Protein backbone atom coordinates (compact mmCIF):
# COMPACT_ATOMS: atom_id res chain seq x y z
CA UNK A 1 0.00 0.00 0.00
CA UNK A 2 1.30 3.45 -0.93
CA UNK A 3 1.78 5.76 2.03
CA UNK A 4 -0.37 8.91 2.19
CA UNK A 5 2.81 11.00 2.17
CA UNK A 6 5.89 9.33 0.73
CA UNK A 7 9.21 11.15 0.65
CA UNK A 8 12.39 9.74 -0.84
CA UNK A 9 15.88 11.25 -0.71
CA UNK A 10 14.74 14.86 -0.78
CA UNK A 11 17.49 17.47 -1.15
CA UNK A 12 17.16 21.24 -1.00
CA UNK A 13 19.89 23.86 -1.08
CA UNK A 14 19.13 27.60 -0.96
CA UNK A 15 20.90 30.03 -3.30
CA UNK A 16 23.07 31.37 -0.44
CA UNK A 17 24.45 27.88 0.09
CA UNK A 18 22.42 26.67 3.09
CA UNK A 19 21.68 22.96 2.73
CA UNK A 20 18.18 22.79 4.22
CA UNK A 21 17.45 19.13 3.41
CA UNK A 22 20.09 16.43 2.98
CA UNK A 23 18.35 13.35 1.68
CA UNK A 24 15.16 13.26 3.73
CA UNK A 25 13.07 10.08 3.46
CA UNK A 26 9.79 9.54 5.32
CA UNK A 27 6.55 7.59 5.09
CA UNK A 28 3.32 8.77 6.70
CA UNK A 29 0.32 6.46 6.50
CA UNK A 30 -3.27 7.53 5.93
CA UNK A 31 -4.98 8.78 9.09
CA UNK A 32 -1.77 9.10 11.10
CA UNK A 33 -1.13 12.07 13.39
CA UNK A 34 2.49 12.73 12.57
CA UNK A 35 4.78 15.39 14.01
CA UNK A 36 8.08 16.60 12.63
CA UNK A 37 10.31 17.92 15.39
CA UNK A 38 13.63 19.69 15.31
CA UNK A 39 15.43 22.85 16.40
CA UNK A 40 15.00 26.17 14.59
CA UNK A 41 16.57 26.07 11.12
CA UNK A 42 16.58 22.26 11.02
CA UNK A 43 14.59 22.16 7.77
CA UNK A 44 11.04 21.58 9.04
CA UNK A 45 9.40 24.51 7.27
CA UNK A 46 11.40 23.87 4.11
CA UNK A 47 10.07 20.32 4.01
CA UNK A 48 6.48 21.54 4.54
CA UNK A 49 6.92 24.17 1.82
CA UNK A 50 8.15 21.54 -0.64
CA UNK A 51 5.36 19.09 0.23
CA UNK A 52 2.72 21.79 -0.22
CA UNK A 53 4.27 22.87 -3.57
CA UNK A 54 5.22 26.35 -2.37
CA UNK A 55 8.86 25.81 -3.29
CA UNK A 56 10.69 23.32 -5.50
CA UNK A 57 12.99 20.55 -4.36
CA UNK A 58 16.47 20.14 -5.85
CA UNK A 59 16.31 16.35 -6.14
CA UNK A 60 14.54 13.33 -4.76
CA UNK A 61 10.87 12.50 -5.04
CA UNK A 62 7.66 12.66 -3.04
CA UNK A 63 4.02 11.83 -3.44
CA UNK A 64 0.82 12.95 -1.74
CA UNK A 65 -2.02 10.42 -1.79
CA UNK A 66 -0.14 8.57 -4.50
CA UNK A 67 0.09 11.63 -6.77
CA UNK A 68 3.12 13.59 -7.84
CA UNK A 69 2.29 17.11 -6.58
CA UNK A 70 4.48 18.81 -9.16
CA UNK A 71 2.41 17.32 -11.99
CA UNK A 72 -0.98 17.51 -10.20
CA UNK A 73 -0.77 20.84 -8.40
CA UNK A 74 -4.47 21.68 -8.64
CA UNK A 75 -5.66 18.22 -7.55
CA UNK A 76 -3.22 18.19 -4.66
CA UNK A 77 -4.40 21.59 -3.40
CA UNK A 78 -7.92 20.17 -3.18
CA UNK A 79 -6.63 17.34 -0.97
CA UNK A 80 -4.43 19.31 1.40
CA UNK A 81 -5.06 22.05 3.91
CA UNK A 82 -2.21 24.24 5.07
CA UNK A 83 -1.96 26.37 8.20
CA UNK A 84 1.50 27.86 8.37
CA UNK A 85 3.30 30.04 10.90
CA UNK A 86 2.05 33.36 9.50
CA UNK A 87 -1.55 34.53 9.31
CA UNK A 88 -2.47 34.41 5.64
CA UNK A 89 -5.56 36.57 5.75
CA UNK A 90 -6.77 39.64 3.90
CA UNK A 91 -7.10 42.22 6.69
CA UNK A 92 -9.51 44.39 4.69
CA UNK A 93 -12.15 41.68 4.28
CA UNK A 94 -14.83 40.57 6.69
CA UNK A 95 -14.39 37.16 8.36
CA UNK A 96 -17.47 35.68 6.72
CA UNK A 97 -16.55 37.00 3.26
CA UNK A 98 -13.06 35.53 3.54
CA UNK A 99 -14.41 32.10 4.44
CA UNK A 100 -17.07 32.14 1.72
CA UNK A 101 -14.57 33.32 -0.91
CA UNK A 102 -12.10 30.60 0.09
CA UNK A 103 -14.86 27.97 -0.14
CA UNK A 104 -15.82 29.25 -3.60
CA UNK A 105 -12.18 29.05 -4.75
CA UNK A 106 -12.29 25.38 -3.84
CA UNK A 107 -15.34 24.86 -6.03
CA UNK A 108 -18.22 25.08 -3.53
CA UNK A 109 -21.44 26.69 -4.74
CA UNK A 110 -22.69 29.86 -3.02
CA UNK A 111 -25.16 28.05 -0.70
CA UNK A 112 -22.57 25.36 0.10
CA UNK A 113 -19.96 28.05 0.79
CA UNK A 114 -22.27 29.94 3.16
CA UNK A 115 -23.13 26.71 4.99
CA UNK A 116 -19.48 25.73 5.34
CA UNK A 117 -18.53 29.24 6.51
CA UNK A 118 -21.24 28.94 9.20
CA UNK A 119 -19.89 25.56 10.33
CA UNK A 120 -16.36 26.88 10.57
CA UNK A 121 -17.24 30.05 12.45
CA UNK A 122 -19.06 27.89 14.99
CA UNK A 123 -16.27 25.31 15.14
CA UNK A 124 -13.62 27.97 15.78
CA UNK A 125 -15.90 30.12 17.94
CA UNK A 126 -15.81 33.05 15.54
CA UNK A 127 -19.60 33.57 15.44
CA UNK A 128 -19.43 36.99 17.07
CA UNK A 129 -16.61 38.09 14.80
CA UNK A 130 -18.08 37.11 11.45
CA UNK A 131 -18.98 40.63 10.34
CA UNK A 132 -15.74 42.16 11.60
CA UNK A 133 -12.87 42.89 9.25
CA UNK A 134 -10.08 40.34 9.67
CA UNK A 135 -7.60 43.12 10.44
CA UNK A 136 -9.68 44.16 13.46
CA UNK A 137 -9.56 40.71 15.13
CA UNK A 138 -7.45 39.92 18.17
CA UNK A 139 -4.24 37.95 17.60
CA UNK A 140 -5.83 34.71 18.79
CA UNK A 141 -8.89 35.14 16.60
CA UNK A 142 -6.71 35.88 13.58
CA UNK A 143 -5.02 32.52 14.18
CA UNK A 144 -8.40 30.80 14.46
CA UNK A 145 -9.53 32.36 11.20
CA UNK A 146 -6.24 31.39 9.57
CA UNK A 147 -6.76 27.78 10.63
CA UNK A 148 -10.44 27.80 9.63
CA UNK A 149 -9.43 28.95 6.14
CA UNK A 150 -7.23 25.87 5.84
CA UNK A 151 -10.23 23.61 6.45
CA UNK A 152 -12.86 25.07 4.11
CA UNK A 153 -12.62 22.19 1.63
CA UNK A 154 -12.47 19.33 4.17
CA UNK A 155 -8.90 18.32 3.26
CA UNK A 156 -7.79 14.71 3.65
CA UNK A 157 -4.28 15.81 4.67
CA UNK A 158 -3.53 18.73 6.99
CA UNK A 159 -0.17 20.44 7.13
CA UNK A 160 0.12 22.41 10.35
CA UNK A 161 3.35 24.40 10.55
CA UNK A 162 3.54 25.72 14.12
CA UNK A 163 -0.19 26.45 14.02
CA UNK A 164 -0.80 27.47 17.64
CA UNK A 165 1.83 30.21 17.86
CA UNK A 166 0.09 33.28 19.29
CA UNK A 167 -3.01 31.45 20.55
CA UNK A 168 -4.06 31.73 24.18
CA UNK A 169 -4.50 28.44 26.15
CA UNK A 170 -8.28 28.33 25.58
CA UNK A 171 -7.92 28.92 21.85
CA UNK A 172 -5.20 26.27 21.71
CA UNK A 173 -7.34 23.71 23.52
CA UNK A 174 -10.24 24.50 21.20
CA UNK A 175 -8.00 24.23 18.15
CA UNK A 176 -6.64 20.81 19.17
CA UNK A 177 -10.14 19.57 19.91
CA UNK A 178 -11.11 20.38 16.32
CA UNK A 179 -7.98 18.81 14.85
CA UNK A 180 -8.07 15.61 16.90
CA UNK A 181 -11.74 15.22 16.04
CA UNK A 182 -10.90 15.50 12.35
CA UNK A 183 -8.04 13.03 12.80
CA UNK A 184 -10.05 10.42 14.62
CA UNK A 185 -13.43 10.74 12.89
CA UNK A 186 -12.74 11.61 9.23
CA UNK A 187 -9.85 10.37 9.41
CA UNK A 188 -7.63 13.25 8.28
CA UNK A 189 -3.88 12.67 8.10
CA UNK A 190 -2.07 15.35 10.13
CA UNK A 191 1.48 16.55 9.45
CA UNK A 192 2.45 18.84 12.32
CA UNK A 193 5.57 20.84 13.05
CA UNK A 194 5.72 22.52 16.43
CA UNK A 195 8.03 23.78 19.13
CA UNK A 196 5.40 23.01 21.78
CA UNK A 197 6.45 19.43 22.50
CA UNK A 198 3.69 18.92 25.05
CA UNK A 199 1.17 19.41 22.22
CA UNK A 200 3.01 16.93 20.01
CA UNK A 201 3.22 14.44 22.87
CA UNK A 202 -0.48 14.76 23.65
CA UNK A 203 -1.89 14.53 20.12
CA UNK A 204 0.57 12.83 17.78
CA UNK A 205 1.46 9.15 17.66
CA UNK A 206 4.22 9.13 15.03
CA UNK A 207 7.19 11.44 14.78
CA UNK A 208 10.42 12.22 13.02
CA UNK A 209 13.30 14.27 14.33
CA UNK A 210 15.20 16.41 11.87
CA UNK A 211 18.49 18.09 12.71
CA UNK A 212 20.50 20.12 10.20
CA UNK A 213 18.46 18.74 7.30
CA UNK A 214 18.87 15.06 8.23
CA UNK A 215 16.32 12.71 9.77
CA UNK A 216 17.80 11.39 13.01
CA UNK A 217 14.78 9.41 14.14
CA UNK A 218 11.58 8.22 12.55
CA UNK A 219 8.94 6.07 14.26
CA UNK A 220 6.49 6.23 17.13
CA UNK A 221 6.72 8.77 19.92
CA UNK A 222 6.68 5.96 22.47
CA UNK A 223 9.54 4.31 20.60
CA UNK A 224 11.53 7.54 20.66
CA UNK A 225 11.14 7.92 24.40
CA UNK A 226 12.25 4.32 24.94
CA UNK A 227 15.22 4.75 22.65
CA UNK A 228 16.45 7.82 24.57
CA UNK A 229 15.80 6.42 28.02
CA UNK A 230 15.17 2.65 27.96
CA UNK A 231 14.89 2.31 31.72
CA UNK A 232 12.73 5.18 32.79
CA UNK A 233 9.71 7.25 31.84
CA UNK A 234 10.50 10.66 30.36
CA UNK A 235 8.31 13.24 28.71
CA UNK A 236 8.80 13.94 25.02
CA UNK A 237 10.20 17.33 26.01
CA UNK A 238 12.97 15.80 28.16
CA UNK A 239 13.66 12.97 25.72
CA UNK A 240 13.95 15.49 22.87
CA UNK A 241 16.33 17.74 24.81
CA UNK A 242 18.54 14.84 25.81
CA UNK A 243 18.61 13.45 22.28
CA UNK A 244 19.34 16.81 20.62
CA UNK A 245 22.13 17.46 23.13
CA UNK A 246 23.67 14.06 22.37
CA UNK A 247 23.48 14.52 18.62
CA UNK A 248 24.72 18.12 18.67
CA UNK A 249 27.59 17.49 21.04
CA UNK A 250 28.29 13.76 21.55
CA UNK A 251 31.50 14.26 23.57
CA UNK A 252 29.94 16.54 26.20
CA UNK A 253 26.91 14.34 26.67
CA UNK A 254 29.11 11.31 27.40
CA UNK A 255 30.59 13.19 30.35
Amino acid at each position, binding site marked *: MIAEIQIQELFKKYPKGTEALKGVSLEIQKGQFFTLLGPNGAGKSTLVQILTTLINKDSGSFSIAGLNPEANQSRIQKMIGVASQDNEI*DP*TEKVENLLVFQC*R*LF*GLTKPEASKRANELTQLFELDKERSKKAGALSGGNKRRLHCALALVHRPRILFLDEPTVGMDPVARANFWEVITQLNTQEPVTVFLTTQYLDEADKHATEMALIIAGEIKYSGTIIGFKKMVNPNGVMSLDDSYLQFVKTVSNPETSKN
Partner: protein
Amino acid sequence: MNTANILLIERGLVKLIKNPSAPIMGFGMSLFFLLVYNAGIGGIGSMEAFGAGGYLSFVFPITIISLAMGSSAGAGQTLNADMQSGYFKRLYLSPAPRWILVVAPMLADTISSMAFTILLIAIGATFGVSFQFGLLSVLGILLLSFLWSLTLCGFSAGIMLRTGQYQSAAIVTNAVFPLLFLSTTFLPRELITAKWLLAISWGNPVTYILEGNRFLLAGTSSASFFYIGLLIFSITSVVSVTFALRSAKKIKV
Protein backbone atom coordinates in the same frame (compact mmCIF):
# COMPACT_ATOMS: atom_id res chain seq x y z
CA MET B 1 -13.27 30.48 -17.96
CA ASN B 2 -13.42 28.48 -14.71
CA THR B 3 -15.10 29.76 -11.54
CA ALA B 4 -11.89 30.42 -9.63
CA ASN B 5 -10.60 32.68 -12.44
CA ILE B 6 -13.85 34.67 -12.54
CA LEU B 7 -13.90 34.94 -8.74
CA LEU B 8 -10.37 36.32 -8.69
CA ILE B 9 -11.11 38.89 -11.42
CA GLU B 10 -14.31 39.90 -9.58
CA ARG B 11 -12.31 40.27 -6.39
CA GLY B 12 -9.80 42.53 -8.18
CA LEU B 13 -12.66 44.73 -9.42
CA VAL B 14 -14.31 44.92 -6.00
CA LYS B 15 -10.96 45.94 -4.49
CA LEU B 16 -10.66 48.72 -7.08
CA ILE B 17 -14.19 49.92 -6.37
CA LYS B 18 -13.38 50.02 -2.66
CA ASN B 19 -10.11 51.84 -3.30
CA PRO B 20 -10.57 53.75 -6.57
CA SER B 21 -7.89 56.41 -6.13
CA ALA B 22 -5.72 55.34 -9.10
CA PRO B 23 -8.44 55.08 -11.80
CA ILE B 24 -10.17 58.22 -10.54
CA MET B 25 -6.87 60.11 -10.68
CA GLY B 26 -6.35 58.89 -14.24
CA PHE B 27 -9.85 59.96 -15.19
CA GLY B 28 -9.44 63.36 -13.56
CA MET B 29 -6.13 63.90 -15.33
CA SER B 30 -7.74 63.05 -18.69
CA LEU B 31 -10.64 65.43 -18.20
CA PHE B 32 -8.19 68.12 -17.14
CA PHE B 33 -6.14 67.64 -20.34
CA LEU B 34 -9.27 67.78 -22.47
CA LEU B 35 -10.49 70.95 -20.82
CA VAL B 36 -7.16 72.76 -20.74
CA TYR B 37 -5.95 71.89 -24.24
CA ASN B 38 -9.28 72.63 -25.85
CA ALA B 39 -9.68 75.89 -23.95
CA GLY B 40 -6.07 77.00 -24.47
CA ILE B 41 -5.38 76.11 -28.07
CA GLY B 42 -8.77 75.04 -29.37
CA GLY B 43 -8.95 78.19 -31.48
CA ILE B 44 -6.58 76.71 -34.05
CA GLY B 45 -9.12 73.96 -34.67
CA SER B 46 -10.64 76.00 -37.48
CA MET B 47 -7.56 75.28 -39.61
CA GLU B 48 -8.14 72.80 -42.41
CA ALA B 49 -5.62 70.25 -41.08
CA PHE B 50 -7.85 69.48 -38.08
CA GLY B 51 -10.72 68.30 -40.26
CA ALA B 52 -14.41 68.70 -39.65
CA GLY B 53 -14.20 67.46 -36.03
CA GLY B 54 -12.29 70.54 -34.91
CA TYR B 55 -9.65 70.64 -32.19
CA LEU B 56 -11.79 68.77 -29.63
CA SER B 57 -11.89 65.62 -31.79
CA PHE B 58 -8.20 66.08 -32.60
CA VAL B 59 -7.06 66.31 -28.98
CA PHE B 60 -9.51 63.71 -27.63
CA PRO B 61 -7.18 60.70 -28.15
CA ILE B 62 -4.64 62.20 -25.76
CA THR B 63 -7.21 62.01 -22.97
CA ILE B 64 -7.76 58.32 -23.67
CA ILE B 65 -4.03 57.66 -23.64
CA SER B 66 -3.49 59.57 -20.40
CA LEU B 67 -6.43 57.78 -18.77
CA ALA B 68 -4.75 54.39 -19.21
CA MET B 69 -1.47 55.88 -18.00
CA GLY B 70 -3.08 57.16 -14.82
CA SER B 71 -4.77 53.82 -14.15
CA SER B 72 -1.64 51.78 -14.77
CA ALA B 73 0.23 53.81 -12.14
CA GLY B 74 -1.97 52.00 -9.65
CA ALA B 75 -1.70 48.63 -11.38
CA GLY B 76 -0.90 45.81 -9.05
CA GLN B 77 -2.10 47.52 -5.88
CA THR B 78 -4.28 44.49 -5.03
CA LEU B 79 -1.43 42.13 -5.81
CA ASN B 80 0.93 44.16 -3.67
CA ALA B 81 -1.53 44.34 -0.76
CA ASP B 82 -2.01 40.54 -0.92
CA MET B 83 1.73 39.98 -0.87
CA GLN B 84 2.23 42.35 2.06
CA SER B 85 -0.52 40.73 4.13
CA GLY B 86 0.51 37.16 3.30
CA TYR B 87 -2.90 36.48 1.73
CA PHE B 88 -1.21 35.84 -1.60
CA LYS B 89 0.16 32.61 -0.08
CA ARG B 90 -3.37 31.54 0.86
CA LEU B 91 -4.47 32.12 -2.75
CA TYR B 92 -1.33 30.38 -3.99
CA LEU B 93 -2.37 27.27 -2.04
CA SER B 94 -5.81 27.17 -3.66
CA PRO B 95 -6.59 25.06 -6.76
CA ALA B 96 -6.78 28.22 -8.91
CA PRO B 97 -4.13 28.24 -11.65
CA ARG B 98 -1.18 30.26 -10.38
CA TRP B 99 -0.96 32.44 -13.49
CA ILE B 100 -4.44 33.84 -12.83
CA LEU B 101 -3.31 35.16 -9.43
CA VAL B 102 -1.18 37.67 -11.34
CA VAL B 103 -3.34 38.14 -14.42
CA ALA B 104 -6.65 38.66 -12.52
CA PRO B 105 -5.67 41.91 -10.78
CA MET B 106 -4.10 43.14 -14.04
CA LEU B 107 -7.31 42.41 -15.92
CA ALA B 108 -9.29 44.15 -13.19
CA ASP B 109 -7.10 47.24 -13.64
CA THR B 110 -7.63 47.08 -17.40
CA ILE B 111 -11.40 46.58 -17.11
CA SER B 112 -11.61 49.56 -14.75
CA SER B 113 -9.63 51.64 -17.25
CA MET B 114 -12.07 50.57 -19.98
CA ALA B 115 -15.07 51.58 -17.88
CA PHE B 116 -13.63 55.07 -17.43
CA THR B 117 -12.79 55.20 -21.15
CA ILE B 118 -16.47 54.57 -21.96
CA LEU B 119 -17.40 57.38 -19.59
CA LEU B 120 -14.85 59.65 -21.27
CA ILE B 121 -16.21 58.78 -24.71
CA ALA B 122 -19.73 59.64 -23.52
CA ILE B 123 -18.52 63.00 -22.18
CA GLY B 124 -16.60 63.63 -25.43
CA ALA B 125 -19.67 62.81 -27.53
CA THR B 126 -21.79 65.18 -25.41
CA PHE B 127 -19.36 68.02 -26.07
CA GLY B 128 -19.17 67.43 -29.83
CA VAL B 129 -16.38 64.91 -30.50
CA SER B 130 -17.19 63.28 -33.84
CA PHE B 131 -17.08 59.51 -34.43
CA GLN B 132 -16.93 59.00 -38.18
CA PHE B 133 -17.98 55.31 -38.11
CA GLY B 134 -20.43 55.68 -35.21
CA LEU B 135 -20.47 52.62 -32.92
CA LEU B 136 -17.68 50.96 -34.91
CA SER B 137 -15.46 53.94 -34.10
CA VAL B 138 -16.26 53.54 -30.41
CA LEU B 139 -15.45 49.81 -30.52
CA GLY B 140 -12.20 50.51 -32.36
CA ILE B 141 -11.18 53.12 -29.77
CA LEU B 142 -12.02 50.69 -26.96
CA LEU B 143 -9.96 47.93 -28.59
CA LEU B 144 -6.90 50.16 -28.98
CA SER B 145 -7.41 51.48 -25.47
CA PHE B 146 -7.68 47.94 -24.06
CA LEU B 147 -4.39 46.87 -25.64
CA TRP B 148 -2.63 50.06 -24.56
CA SER B 149 -3.96 49.74 -21.02
CA LEU B 150 -3.05 46.04 -20.77
CA THR B 151 0.46 46.86 -21.99
CA LEU B 152 0.96 49.50 -19.32
CA CYS B 153 -0.68 47.46 -16.54
CA GLY B 154 1.43 44.39 -17.40
CA PHE B 155 4.72 46.27 -17.31
CA SER B 156 3.71 48.18 -14.16
CA ALA B 157 2.68 45.00 -12.32
CA GLY B 158 5.83 43.19 -13.52
CA ILE B 159 8.13 45.94 -12.27
CA MET B 160 6.25 46.08 -8.98
CA LEU B 161 6.63 42.30 -8.55
CA ARG B 162 10.34 42.41 -9.31
CA THR B 163 11.13 45.35 -7.03
CA GLY B 164 8.62 44.36 -4.36
CA GLN B 165 7.62 48.03 -4.03
CA TYR B 166 4.17 49.27 -4.90
CA GLN B 167 5.43 52.77 -5.75
CA SER B 168 7.61 51.38 -8.54
CA ALA B 169 4.48 50.68 -10.63
CA ALA B 170 4.57 54.40 -11.50
CA ILE B 171 7.92 53.92 -13.28
CA VAL B 172 6.11 52.89 -16.48
CA THR B 173 3.91 56.01 -16.45
CA ASN B 174 6.97 58.20 -15.95
CA ALA B 175 8.85 56.38 -18.73
CA VAL B 176 5.97 56.70 -21.20
CA PHE B 177 5.15 60.32 -20.37
CA PRO B 178 7.89 61.89 -22.58
CA LEU B 179 6.61 59.83 -25.54
CA LEU B 180 3.42 61.90 -25.43
CA PHE B 181 5.42 65.01 -26.30
CA LEU B 182 7.50 63.31 -29.00
CA SER B 183 4.50 62.62 -31.17
CA THR B 184 1.71 64.38 -33.06
CA THR B 185 -0.01 65.11 -29.78
CA PHE B 186 -0.94 68.76 -30.23
CA LEU B 187 -0.57 69.34 -33.95
CA PRO B 188 -1.06 67.29 -37.11
CA ARG B 189 2.08 66.04 -38.86
CA GLU B 190 1.87 68.65 -41.63
CA LEU B 191 2.04 71.50 -39.12
CA ILE B 192 5.08 70.19 -37.25
CA THR B 193 8.11 72.07 -38.53
CA ALA B 194 10.97 70.34 -36.66
CA LYS B 195 12.25 67.49 -38.79
CA TRP B 196 13.80 65.66 -35.83
CA LEU B 197 10.43 65.57 -34.07
CA LEU B 198 8.76 64.22 -37.20
CA ALA B 199 11.44 61.54 -37.50
CA ILE B 200 11.03 60.50 -33.86
CA SER B 201 7.24 60.48 -34.12
CA TRP B 202 7.44 57.80 -36.84
CA GLY B 203 9.21 55.46 -34.42
CA ASN B 204 7.10 56.40 -31.43
CA PRO B 205 4.35 53.81 -30.75
CA VAL B 206 2.19 56.50 -29.13
CA THR B 207 1.85 58.10 -32.60
CA TYR B 208 0.01 55.02 -33.87
CA ILE B 209 -2.54 54.98 -31.08
CA LEU B 210 -3.07 58.75 -31.44
CA GLU B 211 -3.40 58.68 -35.21
CA GLY B 212 -5.34 55.41 -35.15
CA ASN B 213 -7.90 57.08 -32.88
CA ARG B 214 -7.97 60.16 -35.10
CA PHE B 215 -8.80 57.93 -38.06
CA LEU B 216 -11.78 56.60 -36.08
CA LEU B 217 -12.86 60.03 -34.79
CA ALA B 218 -12.71 62.80 -37.42
CA GLY B 219 -10.92 60.78 -40.09
CA THR B 220 -7.91 63.13 -40.16
CA SER B 221 -5.48 60.16 -40.37
CA SER B 222 -5.27 57.12 -42.60
CA ALA B 223 -6.58 53.67 -41.65
CA SER B 224 -3.06 52.25 -41.78
CA PHE B 225 -2.24 53.97 -38.45
CA PHE B 226 -5.14 52.12 -36.81
CA TYR B 227 -4.06 48.74 -38.18
CA ILE B 228 -0.39 49.27 -37.35
CA GLY B 229 -1.43 50.46 -33.88
CA LEU B 230 -3.46 47.28 -33.37
CA LEU B 231 -0.49 45.16 -34.41
CA ILE B 232 2.01 47.05 -32.24
CA PHE B 233 -0.12 47.01 -29.10
CA SER B 234 -1.20 43.38 -29.56
CA ILE B 235 2.49 42.49 -29.52
CA THR B 236 3.30 44.77 -26.57
CA SER B 237 0.31 43.34 -24.63
CA VAL B 238 1.62 39.81 -25.07
CA VAL B 239 5.14 40.94 -24.10
CA SER B 240 3.94 42.82 -21.00
CA VAL B 241 1.69 39.99 -19.75
CA THR B 242 4.57 37.54 -20.29
CA PHE B 243 6.87 39.93 -18.40
CA ALA B 244 4.38 40.11 -15.50
CA LEU B 245 4.02 36.32 -15.39
CA ARG B 246 7.78 35.81 -15.45
CA SER B 247 8.15 38.41 -12.72
CA ALA B 248 5.60 36.48 -10.65
CA LYS B 249 7.97 33.50 -10.58
CA LYS B 250 10.34 35.64 -8.53
CA ILE B 251 7.76 36.07 -5.77
CA LYS B 252 8.81 34.38 -2.55
CA VAL B 253 5.69 32.95 -0.94
